[in-house]
């Protein structure tokens, strides 16, 4: 199982599903990180966390701990 936090910059893939069912997951879903969505990792912050991704035509930042909830397909 690959999760989004293990992606490198400029790597992209498709969302398989989001683990769990809570407020964090729902915020991710609302922002368009839904199964089937294309996601590209843009960069990591200077201290390695958080990360910036490109999804549905806009830029979103999230922590690695949140990205770890997103199961991906390369």
């Amino acid at each position, binding site marked *: 199982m690959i999760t989004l936090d293990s992606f490198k910059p400029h790597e992209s893939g498709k969302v398989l*599903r*989001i683990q*769990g*069912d*809570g*407020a*964090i*997951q*729902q*915020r*991710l*879903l*609302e*922002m*368009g990180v*839904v*199964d*089937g*969505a294309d996601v590209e990792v*843009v*960069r*990591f*912050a*200077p*201290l*390695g*966390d*958080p990360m*910036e991704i490109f999804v*549905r*035509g*806009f*830029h*979103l*930042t*999230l*922590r690695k*701990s*949140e990205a770890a909830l997103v199961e991906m397909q390369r």
Partner: protein
Amino acid sequence: MSQTVALVGNPNVGKTAVFNALTGLHQHTGNYAGVTVERKHGTVRQGGASVDLIDLPGAYSLSARSPDEIILADVLLGLREDAAPVMGLLIVVDASNLERNLFFVSQLLDLDKPSIIALNMMDIARRRNIAIRTEALEAALGVPVVPLCARTGEGIAELKTALLGLCSGQAGAQTPLPQRHEAAAKALAAVLETHRHVLGRVVPAIEALRILVDRESYAEKRLIGRLGADFQDTIERYREEARSNGKSLAAEESRARYAWVQSVMADAVERPSTRTKSRSERIDNLLTHRFFGTLFFVGLMLLIFQTIYSWAGPLMDLVDGGIGSLGERVGGLLPGGMLQSLVVDGIFAGVGGVLVFLPQILLLSLFIALLEDCGYMSRAAFLMDRLLGWCGLSGQSFIPMLSSFACAVPGILATRTINNRRDRFTTILVAPLMSCSARLPVYLIMIAAFIPEHSILGGLIGIQAMALFLMYSVGVLVAVPTAWILKKTLFKGPKPPFILEMPSYKVPQAMTVGRKVYYEGKEFLSRAGTLIFAVTILVWALAYFPHSSTIAGQYEAERTQLLQSSVEGEARELALADVNDRENGAYLRYSFLGQFGNFVEPVFHPLGWDWRIATATIASFPAREIIVATLGTLFNLGSDEDEASLTLLETLKAATWPDGRPLFNIAVAFSIMVFFALCAQCSATLITIKRETGQWRWPVLTFVYMTGLAYVCACITYQTLHFAGLGG
């Protein structure tokens, strides 16, 4: 009466700019999530008709967790008594970021109200070669779509026309949601219908759906609060009923909505097939770069302090000189005595001393307004999140904290976008530690008087600007462990999430920025003209009276004796001046304030302060910058009247202890600055904390912990510097 239309949309879509363009009402627009906290009303007029427009906080969805989102959902559902029922929706969307915007549109259209879509930022969409066929979009959404660019005013007239005909229009297309969701929501609504007498209203199916989908949301908690904890089982039962394949309800709903969005987009929008780097992305390659981004951030902060210091200097001298000569002239017109003392020592030395800092205040607020308006704040949050993570907060708290550098009050209000109560309260309690603009006068006067004017790095950075930077860091450095302790004790809980949109960079709008700077300056001036003016008069009165005649008699006798003695010429003049000085000192010492000061002086002795600094500090409880005014008054009162025209800077440099040692030195200057960096001498902040948290104990806690910290840290600073030989 005209009908009410709600202005809704995602954050960062230019909602406030649309509001301003439509109503002509003036508010500021920011570039980070949640600047539109206050509910604003405006009337849109065209011909004889009018519509009442209510501006609601920006949000990404209707699931309500933060105070902002709760207001939004409640107003739209008609649950707030203080807002008129909403008859229609004006939905602002970002044309260059349509996909995610349409997700919210899909939820809003489900509210079944007449709606219009304002397709804002068409200029950016065109630049990115995104082609939008308006008619196709109208057909797919079932509501009018008006393309516009609020910044330039393009399309505003068309939007006005559409808006005035809105309430007779019809509701838009509904998103097909999973059958089981809708059935379960209807069933729950039917159950709630039987509790109508307890709830006092009927819960519509759309609200029932949100209760089912949004776990632990406000809507759910409110319902449980009314119907009792047992009702949780009922909700869970319907949740189970709605679930079909083990997937969470939220995932199912989002998938259905995004599927609908994609079908809408397929008909109406054409995006370039290959992704080209937008201008904003190219800028970000540098500004959020691992190395250059951090360098830029630190450089930017240094630049701000250097600018405040060196650019504002000449302006400051100009104001200072003007006030000084005016005070001298007005003082000369008045006969010597009580009234002259009030005008010269009280008003000119006090209020005038504060007014001098207007240029710096304006420059600082200009910088903050520019950073907010261009979209850099989100980047700063991105760069800093990890650092904040160490103290248990998130980048979400960073934006309110950055705003607190202008003033803690808007900073505290900006925490309304934080949905977790623990994180919100922690942020509220540490935000006042950020060095707000009211501390700037205190720093500037101390630095200008007691820090040498050297520069390092070939004249690039002055020592004085460095000292200012250091003072600004003190607040941040103390805030980190404070937040950490608060998160470990009072507000124990997991690290909050950090899911933040990075909006595209925008060229700051002169109007928006100008308005912010104008309001900041106006506030500063009105504070100087009202509160500081009043406090200065009171401090003057307390420091002038009783002005006992015994002292007057005693020194008069000494003067007479001197005049009759054999001392002649210059020596006599000097001796007379000395008598006058001592007389003024005696009046001050035996004034009401002086007696009080003597009483409290021992408490502040470890900080290196005399009673005048101590009382000036206590008197500045209503607002920090009052200390500049009270220091001016106290030190002017205590000196010979011929010297009253000296600027505050010179007066402070000349101040001594009773035994003649100079009162101020680097150690004392830093101890004062550190105290003011950390103390809670701002009644407006404390009142705002009370208002936002709803309880008096939080402002009381803030005051106690900040004052304690201020005292201890100032003490350590003074003792250390004194020990290092800088206290001589």
